[in-house]
């Protein structure tokens, strides 16, 4: 990883020096050895702080949204999942490809700094830290799908047998059991909207939940408003979620959000598929739910 880090620094310095980009998005070390954090380098002398280690889990494609109204040229480092985020943004017309210089890194799987922070915080009973973060355990695209330069050795996708295991388990329950499960899970939500903010597919300029005329979803932390929030958000993700798992990772109350997203991924794949969101960018291509075809199945609606 150190070799990749050095290579990233080299590229960043080269791009910033030549003026090919004016911002380079990568990571720097946080306050603890188990914490890395997004870092925006703007000049060659800032490049030194860049790191690339096993805690660089954040999806930097989300940070591109901060620049959608600027004319900055941006270099950034993406792992496999993050690169799908870029395809998402390109497909959604949020940023122009020509403004990006994409450094792809074939990703061996990351560790979650938030879990490490929590384990060391004294605010939770420590959990055993898995070899790779939860979100990486069923990774299918460790290798970037879009890049200008590729670093690292090609990685093999992880086994998929457990990808839908939890979704399947829930589908096996009775309607009342399922409702009880989601009632328990979603009543924990504190409506901090971290899941939305961490999501690259949540790129609407005016989010439906911030819309006040009319107010579509109430702001109470009551079960009905919470459920409404999560169901509406999930529906907006259908066919668009790139499975980077950031929403679930950042949730401060540990709501298994990917359980809902994966269900929709599974359905979209079944009804419209085979389909994987954000694996290939073709100009003008749209996710399946943004298109109408006569043979579209009715039961998804």
């Amino acid at each position, binding site marked *: 990883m150190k070799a990749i880090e050095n290579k990233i620094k080299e590229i960043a310095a080269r791009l910033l020096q030549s003026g090919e980009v004016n911002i380079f998005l990568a990571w720097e070390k946080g306050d603890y050895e188990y914490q890395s954090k997004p870092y925006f380098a703007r000049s060659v002398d800032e490049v030194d702080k860049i790191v690339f280690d096993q805690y660089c889990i954040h999806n930097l494609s989300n940070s591109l949204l901060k620049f959608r109204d600027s004319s900055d040229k941006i270099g950034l480092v993406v792992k496999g999942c993050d690169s799908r985020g870029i395809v998402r943004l390109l497909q959604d017309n949020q940023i122009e490809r020509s403004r990006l210089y994409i450094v792809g890194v074939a990703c061996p799987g990351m560790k979650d700094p938030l879990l490490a922070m929590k384990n060391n915080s004294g605010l939770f009973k420590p959990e055993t830290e898995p070899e790779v973060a939860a979100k990486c355990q069923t990774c299918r695209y460790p290798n970037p799908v879009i890049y200008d330069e590729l670093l690292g050795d090609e990685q093999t996708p992880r086994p998929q047998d457990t990808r839908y295991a939890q979704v399947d388990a*829930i*589908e096996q*329950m009775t*309607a*009342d*059991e*399922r*409702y*009880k*499960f*989601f009632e328990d899970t979603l009543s924990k939500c504190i409506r901090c909207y971290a899941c939305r903010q961490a999501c690259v597919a949540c790129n609407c300029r005016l989010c439906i939940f911030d819309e006040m005329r009319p107010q579509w979803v109430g702001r109470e932390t*009551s*079960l*009905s408003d919470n*459920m*409404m929030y999560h*169901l509406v958000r*999930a*529906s907006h993700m259908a066919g668009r979620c790139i499975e980077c798992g950031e929403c679930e990772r950042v949730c401060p109350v540990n709501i298994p959000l990917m359980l*809902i997203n994966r*269900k*929709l991924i599974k*359905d979209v794949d079944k009804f419209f598929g085979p389909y994987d969101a954000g694996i290939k960018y073709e100009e003008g291509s749209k996710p399946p739910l943004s298109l109408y075809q006569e043979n579209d199945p*009715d*039961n*998804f*609606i």
Partner: protein
Amino acid sequence: MKSLMEYIGIEPERYQTAWISGAEGIKFKETMENLVSDITRLGPNRKLRDMR
């Protein structure tokens, strides 16, 4: 949508869509009658309600 509602434990019959043209009066009638009978069979919805 239907599938998602089912997933979180709402009976799928509570949400139905049908494509009915303005000229298809009979189909509209049948659809509505079926819907009403489905809902009557299910009884009042206790899920997703406000806690007042």
